[in-house]
C-alpha cells in the first residue's frame, strides 16, 4: 500500500522543518488565555497545601483507588462507545446515500442539548426497575426490569448524551477530506471495508481524537448523570467531600488527582493525533466526495439512526412532556420562565463570542507554530474542562473575591468561568478546521503584501469559518446547560434555565422542572439547527 501511503503525502518539507517564531499578535493572547486556565490549578495547589496525613491516607485507601480505577474504566468505555457510534453515524450521514441525510444530520447532533442532570432523571424514570417502561410492560407480567444503575446505566447515559462530540468532529473531517487516497486504494484492489479501515479511518484520527478527548474529559467531570445512575465516580467523591465534611482541602486533593488523570488523557490523545498533515495538496477542481450506495443495508442504517435519536432525544422530550401534562392535570399551574430563558440565551451568546475569540490564537499557535510551548498552551486549555464545575467555581471565588472584587459576582466573572470550563470545545473545532487549510494560503497572502494580522483576518479566519461556527454552536449549548458555576458566580437574581431546572428537580417538582427543561432544549435547537444547516449547505 505504498502508493496509498504516499498519497497521504507527508512531504519532506514539513517533516523536520522548524517553524518560525510565532508573532506576538498570536502568542500573547494565547499565553494569556492559557494562564487564565491555570487559575483552578493554582487554587487547588493553595488548598492542598494544608493537607495532612489524614488526607493522604484517605486518598490512598483501597476504596479511593478502586473508585479511581472505576472512573478510568468508565471514561475508557464511554470514549470507545462514543467513538464507534460517532464515526459510524458521521460516515452514514456524510458518505452514503442514506435517505433523509440532512434531517438525520441535524437530529443526530441534537442530543447535546440535553443536560446530563436531566438525561439521568429521564433514563431512570423511563427504564428504571419500576419505571415507565416497566409499567407499560406490566400487563405482560413484567414485574421488575433489571437494574440500570451503576456502571451500565452510567455508561449508556454518558454515551447517549455525549456522542455528538465525536460526531461533529468526524463529520467535519469527512466532509473536507481529499478523496484521492480512497480512490487510490480502490484502484489497488481494496474493497470498501478495507478502504474504510486502512485509508479513511487513519485520516480521521485527529478528528476522532479531538472528539474523543472531549468525551473522556466530560465523563471525568460529570456529576449529574453518574449520581443519578448511582455510579460512584471520582467526581462523586469530590462532591461528597464538599457535601459532607465541607472539607475543601480533601476535595482539592482529590481534584488534583483528577487533574493528573486529565494529563494522562491529554497525553494519550496527543499520541493518537499523529503527525501527518491532512490538508489537500493536490490541485485541480475539487471533486465531489464519493458516495457509497447502501443497498439493503439502508434499513439497518436507518434503524440505528432512528434508535439513537429516539433514545437520546425523543425520549427526554417525551418524558418531560409527560411530567408536564401529569403536573397540569394534578392542578399545577403552568409557569413560563421567559426571564431565565432570556438570561440563558444572553449569557450563552456573550460567552460564545468570547470563547471563540479566545480559541483562535490558541488554535493558530498550535497548528501553524508547533513547538513545545504551543503544545503546552493548547493542552493547558483542557484542564478546566475536566474539572468538576464546583472546583472551577470555587477557584474563581477564591481569586475573584480577593483580587477582582469589583468584578466578583458580575456577569463578566461568570463569563470568565464559562471560558475556563468550555474553551477546549472551541479550540478543538478551530484546530481541526485549521488542519485542513494549507499553510501555503497564508504564505501566498504574505507574499502579496498582507501583514500577519491582515492575513489572519482576510485569509485564516474566513477559511476557519466552518470550524468556528461548529465550535460556536457547541459552546453555546454547553454554556446553556452549565450549572454549578452559574449557581455560585452569577449575579444575584440572574436565573438561567439550568438553575431553574435544578431548583425544581432537587425538590422532586418534576412538573415544574419540565417547563424550563423543555425550553432549554428548544432554545438550544436554534444554534444547533443553524449550525447543522450551514454545514450542509457548505458541502
Amino acid at each position, binding site marked *: 500500500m505504498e502508493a496509498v501511503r504516499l498519497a497521504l503525502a507527508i512531504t*519532506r*518539507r514539513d517533516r*523536520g*522543518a*522548524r517553524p*518560525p517564531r510565532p508573532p506576538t499578535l498570536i502568542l500573547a493572547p494565547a499565553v494569556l488565555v492559557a494562564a487564565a486556565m491555570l487559575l483552578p490549578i493554582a487554587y487547588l495547589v493553595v488548598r492542598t497545601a494544608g493537607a495532612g496525613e489524614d488526607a493522604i491516607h484517605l486518598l490512598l485507601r483501597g476504596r479511593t483507588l478502586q473508585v479511581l480505577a472505576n472512573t478510568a474504566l468508565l471514561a475508557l468505555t464511554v470514549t470507545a462507545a462514543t467513538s464507534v457510534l460517532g464515526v459510524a453515524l458521521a460516515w452514514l450521514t456524510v458518505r452514503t446515500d442514506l435517505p433523509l441525510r440532512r434531517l438525520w444530520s441535524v437530529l443526530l447532533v441534537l442530543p447535546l442539548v440535553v443536560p446530563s442532570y436531566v438525561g439521568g432523571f429521564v433514563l431512570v424514570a423511563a427504564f428504571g426497575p419500576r419505571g415507565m417502561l416497566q409499567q407499560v410492560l406490566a400487563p405482560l407480567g413484567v414485574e421488575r426490569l433489571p437494574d440500570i444503575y451503576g456502571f451500565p446505566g452510567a455508561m449508556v447515559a454518558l454515551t447517549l448524551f455525549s456522542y455528538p462530540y465525536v460526531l461533529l468532529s468526524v463529520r467535519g473531517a469527512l466532509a473536507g477530506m481529499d478523496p484521492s487516497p480512497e480512490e487510490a486504494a480502490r484502484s489497488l484492489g481494496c474493497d470498501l471495508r478495507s478502504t474504510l479501515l486502512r485509508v479513511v479511518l487513519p485520516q480521521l484520527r485527529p478528528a476522532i481524537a479531538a472528539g474523543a478527548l472531549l468525551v473522556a474529559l466530560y465523563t471525568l467531570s460529570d456529576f449529574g448523570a453518574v449520581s443519578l445512575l448511582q455510579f460512584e465516580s471520582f467526581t462523586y467523591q469530590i462532591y461528597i467531600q464538599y457535601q459532607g465534611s465541607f472539607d475543601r482541602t480533601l476535595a482539592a486533593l482529590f481534584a488534583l488527582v483528577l487533574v493528573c488523570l486529565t494529563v494522562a488523557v491529554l497525553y494519550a490523545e496527543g499520541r493518537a493525533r499523529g503527525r501527518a498533515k491532512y490538508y489537500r*495538496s*493536490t*490541485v*485541480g*477542481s*475539487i471533486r465531489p466526495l464519493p458516495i457509497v450506495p447502501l443497498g439493503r443495508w439502508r434499513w439497518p442504517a436507518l434503524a440505528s439512526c432512528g434508535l439513537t435519536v429516539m433514545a437520546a432525544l425523543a425520549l427526554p422530550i417525551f418524558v418531560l412532556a409527560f411530567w408536564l401534562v401529569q403536573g397540569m392535570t394534578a392542578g399545577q399551574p403552568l409557569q413560563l420562565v421567559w426571564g431565565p430563558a432570556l438570561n440563558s440565551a444572553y449569557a450563552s451568546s456573550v460567552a460564545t463570542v468570547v470563547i471563540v475569540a479566545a480559541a483562535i490564537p490558541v488554535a493558530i499557535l498550535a497548528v501553524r507554530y508547533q513547538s513545545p510551548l504551543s503544545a503546552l498552551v493548547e493542552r493547558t486549555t483542557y484542564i478546566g474542562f475536566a474539572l468538576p464545575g464546583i472546583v472551577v467555581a470555587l477557584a474563581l471565588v477564591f481569586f475573584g473575591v480577593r483580587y477582582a472584587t469589583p468584578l466578583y459576582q458580575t456577569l463578566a466573572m461568570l463569563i470568565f468561568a464559562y471560558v475556563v470550563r468550555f474553551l477546549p470545545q472551541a479550540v478543538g473545532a478551530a484546530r481541526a478546521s485549521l488542519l485542513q487549510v*494549507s499553510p*501555503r*494560503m497564508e*504564505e*501566498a*497572502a*504574505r*507574499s*502579496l*503584501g*498582507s*501583514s*500577519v494580522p*491582515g*492575513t489572519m483576518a*482576510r*485569509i485564516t479566519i*474566513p*477559511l476557519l*469559518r466552518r470550524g468556528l461556527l461548529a465550535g460556536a454552536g457547541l459552546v453555546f449549548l454547553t454554556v446553556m446547560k452549565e450549572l454549578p458555576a452559574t449557581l455560585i458566580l452569577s449575579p444575584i437574581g440572574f436565573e438561567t434555565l439550568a438553575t431553574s431546572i435544578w431548583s425544581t428537580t432537587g425538590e422532586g417538582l418534576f412538573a415544574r422542572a419540565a417547563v424550563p427543561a423543555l425550553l432549554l432544549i428548544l432554545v438550544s435547537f436554534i444554534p444547533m439547527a443553524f449550525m447543522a444547516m450551514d454545514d450542509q449547505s457548505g458541502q
Partner: protein
Amino acid sequence: MSIMFGRNLAPDRERLRTRDNMAYNTGRTVLRNLDNSVALTLRQVYKSFGGPLVIEDLSFQVGHKEVFAILGPSGCGKTTTLRLIAGFERPDSGEILLGGQAVASPSRWLPPEKRGVGIVFQDYALFPHLSVEQNVAFGLRSFPATQRDKIVRIMLDMVGMGQYAQRYPHELSGGQQQRVALARSLAPCPVVLLLDEPFSNLDADMRTQMRQEVQRILKEAETTAILVTHDQEEAFILADRVALLNAGQLEQVGTPEEIYHHPATRFVAGFVGEADFLDGRTTGGTVETEVGRFPYQGPLAPDTSVSIMLRPDDVDLAPDPQGEAVIAQRHFRGSENLYAIRLSSGKVLHSSQPSTVILPLGQPVRVQAAPAHVVAFPQDPNLTQDALPTPS
C-alpha cells in the same frame, strides 16, 4: 522600471507608469534602484533544519528581467532556496539581497510581506473563499478601487482568464488555476517572481501548452523570474540561465547550452540530458578509449584514468559484420530511434539515429564517436573536477 500590462493597451501605458511609483508605496520598504542590473543576489547562504545542512554555501546572482531556473533532483534544497528568497525561512548564515538591498543578513531580516517577492506555489494556493477577481486583487489593497479593478482586468486578460473573473477556484481546471495564480502574483509588480515546480501538477500536453503560455507571460511582463524544477527539459525551454543544485550545493550555473555541452561535474552531466560514461586514459594530448582516441587538452596529467561523457547524438554506428559491438535495444521515440549498443567490454552506449534507420537486435555494428568536444572527468574523486572543453 518595467511596466506590466497587456498587448493592445498602449493608451494605458502612461497612466500605469505612475503605478510603478505606487508600487513603492505599498508598504514594501524595498527596492529603490532597480536600474541596478542585478535583481537578486545570494551570498554564501547556509540553511539547516536542526540537522544536516539543507543548503550549503549557496551563492549566485540573477539579473534583471532574467528567467533563472534552479534545477535538481528531489530533496536537493531547491524549494528551500525559494522559501529563503521569499522570506518564509531564515538563513542560518549568509546574505540575500534584492535589488542591491539586503533582505536577509546577520543584521537584518525583512518579513515576506515587505519584500515584494511574488510566489506561485506548486498547488497554486488560490484562496478558495474568494473569486478569481478577488484573488488577483488581493495584493492590490493599497490601490484606489478604480485603479485596482483596471489592473485586475489587465492581468486577467494577459493570462487569458478574462471571462472567468467571477468564478471560484474550485470551478477551474489545473491550468486555469495556474494562470490565475500567475496573474495574482504579478499584479502587484513584484521585484522577483518565484515559481515552485509550476508544471508538475499538469498532464503532459497541458504542460507543453502552459510552458509556452508562461514563457509568453513572463516576457510580456518583463519580470525577473526564478523557476524551481526537477525537469531538465522545462528548465532549458524557459530559462535564460540554469543553476544545478545537488544536495544543497551549487554544482554549476550557466546557460542551458553551457550546461549541456560543458557540464562541470559528472552529476551535472548525468542529470542534464542522457549521457554515457566511457572509461579512458589520458595520454599526452589525447585520451584513449574503447571506441577510439580523441584529442584532449585538459589540465589532467597524462596517464590519468578518466570517464568520458558521450551523449547519444555524439555516437554514431554503422552495420559491420566485423564490428565488435552489437545492438542490444532499440527505443522508437517518434522523432528518433535510440539504440543501446553493447561494446565488447560489456559497456553500453546509446546512439541517436533518425527514425527511419531501423537495425535489428543483435546486429554487429561499428561504433564511431565524434563529440564536438571532449568532456572528461577524472575517476579519482580527489583530483580536480575539470572538464575544460578543447577547441575543436
